[in-house]
């Protein structure tokens, strides 16, 4: 993890450091997948709902790892996407955001163990919106939260059940998660988590 002066801005220099590389991400997800199975004492009634954008590909990867550990699981059948755009508390302070699709597994969420999946947990407001969105869709038996990165600075009483890496940051820093399903750098797919600080 070195300091690499990167890219743009005529006057500013942005320092980035890589905190998780591709292998680190994969190991973290494997551990989270096992933790999910452990907390639930198996795969019964499990539903993984990814929060767009990057929560969804993470949910897909987690489902594959869970199916690898427990062959009775059909990975595609337990994954879904939960869009929280309409439930955000900051809609009127941002430019308009069109919503992403919400797609639930065919078996629904009533009485299920729903694990919300997101890439970064920060203020906690996205998860608060996700809980409101979830309640309008049905009544899960239990709701848990799995995140790849917890960077602190919570503004609401929200905590994750499963964390890939705890990353203390200052609010001036930006945490960027890049996954090959959604991101590329110079045209090449990439998997990494970086922290950007403006010098």
């Amino acid at each position: 993890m070195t300091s690499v002066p990167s890219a743009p801005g005529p006057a500013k220099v942005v320092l980035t450091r890589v905190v998780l590389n591709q292998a680190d991400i994969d190991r973290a997800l494997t551990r989270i997948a096992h933790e999910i199975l452990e907390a639930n004492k198996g795969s019964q009634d499990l539903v993984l709902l990814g929060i767009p954008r990057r929560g969804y590909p993470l949910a897909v990867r987690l489902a594959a790892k869970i199916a690898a550990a427990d062959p009775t699981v059909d990975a595609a059948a337990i994954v879904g996407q939960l869009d929280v755009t309409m439930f955000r508390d900051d809609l009127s302070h941002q430019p308009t955001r069109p919503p992403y699709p919400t797609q639930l597994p065919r078996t629904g969420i009533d009485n299920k163990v729903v694990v919300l999946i997101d890439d970064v947990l920060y203020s906690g407001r996205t998860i608060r919106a996700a809980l409101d969105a979830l309640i309008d869709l049905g009544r899960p038996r239990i709701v848990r939260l799995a995140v790849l990165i917890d960077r602190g600075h919570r503004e609401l009483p929200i905590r994750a059940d499963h964390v890939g890496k705890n990353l203390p940051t200052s609010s001036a820093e930006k945490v960027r998660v890049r996954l090959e399903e959604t991101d590329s750098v110079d045209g090449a797919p990439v998997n990494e988590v970086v922290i950007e600080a403006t010098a």
Partner: protein
Amino acid sequence: MKHLLSTEDLSLANAVRILDTAEEMAAVGEREVKKLPALRGRTVVNLFFEDSTRTRISFEAAAKRLSADVINFAAKGSSVSKGESLKDTAQTLAAMGADAVVIRHWASGAPHRLAATDWIDAAVINAGDGTHEHPTQALLDAFTMRRHWSKLAGTPSAGADLKGMRVAIAGDVLHSRVARSNVWLLRTLGAEVTLVAPPTLLPIGVEKWPCAVSFDLDETLAQGVDAMMMLRVQGERMNASFFPTTREYSRRWGFDDNRLRALDTLGLKDTIIMHPGPMNRGLEISAAAADSPRSTVLAQVRNGVSIRMAALYLLLSGDTREPATTVTASAAASHAANPNLTYSHQESH
């Protein structure tokens, strides 16, 4: 997008964005809790200078499903009897704190005046102005067509346009705001449009429009049509000599049982029949055609609520102090649960 006044200047990106957002809104209508909190605290005023219970209820349902407050203002006055002026009415609404004004007016251009002057600051949605435009009608028509067209192709409708779809619109084009809005939007979405009408009901200058024009409905059907849209025709027009009798009009330009059968004999098994309503059964469309399985009339009404929810959401949910930026075409194009998204969000968790 600050206002939705017409489809003529609606970009492909914004049009697809509205249609895609409407898909999500439609999903809300199938849930137990048919409500979203997105427009909580916003006030939508229905300012109707022309009677239209159906459109007004559709907008009201749309606003309420987004948790907005709705005020209905049935303005007095008409082209015959002048009531309170548009300017005074608008300023009264602004004083009452309207965030959006949904306006239906008998004078073409009234929504444009509202949006262009400084009488109000709210977002303006055109719910039909004179013979000029009815953008939400065209959008719900396109939404209906898109679902059908994508289903035939076996592809998801999200992000799709209407390239290659053959659409025929028949009726009183001269006096129809639905026809105009549809021609511009269908052109933008890549469909091929043919207008069918008697020469008296086509405007001078229609030859410059981005569509074909025909006086012969049967010939148009024979050339192949994927969606047949019938427009309402007022019988009273025969008194101004637009056509001699309603009987002759129906025979030549009405979608009667013969033409319904022709769809089968021509092998057009997937062709849908559309109508913006209200219908004059027996004049421009036969009862059998209106009630046939090909008819999408009820779906159009349902889709109207979803489209109007999308329009209200996209105009009102953002920071309304500044005009929302236009989404680039690439971002809007791929909007399914497709991981390969390049949407430029401000990330904040």
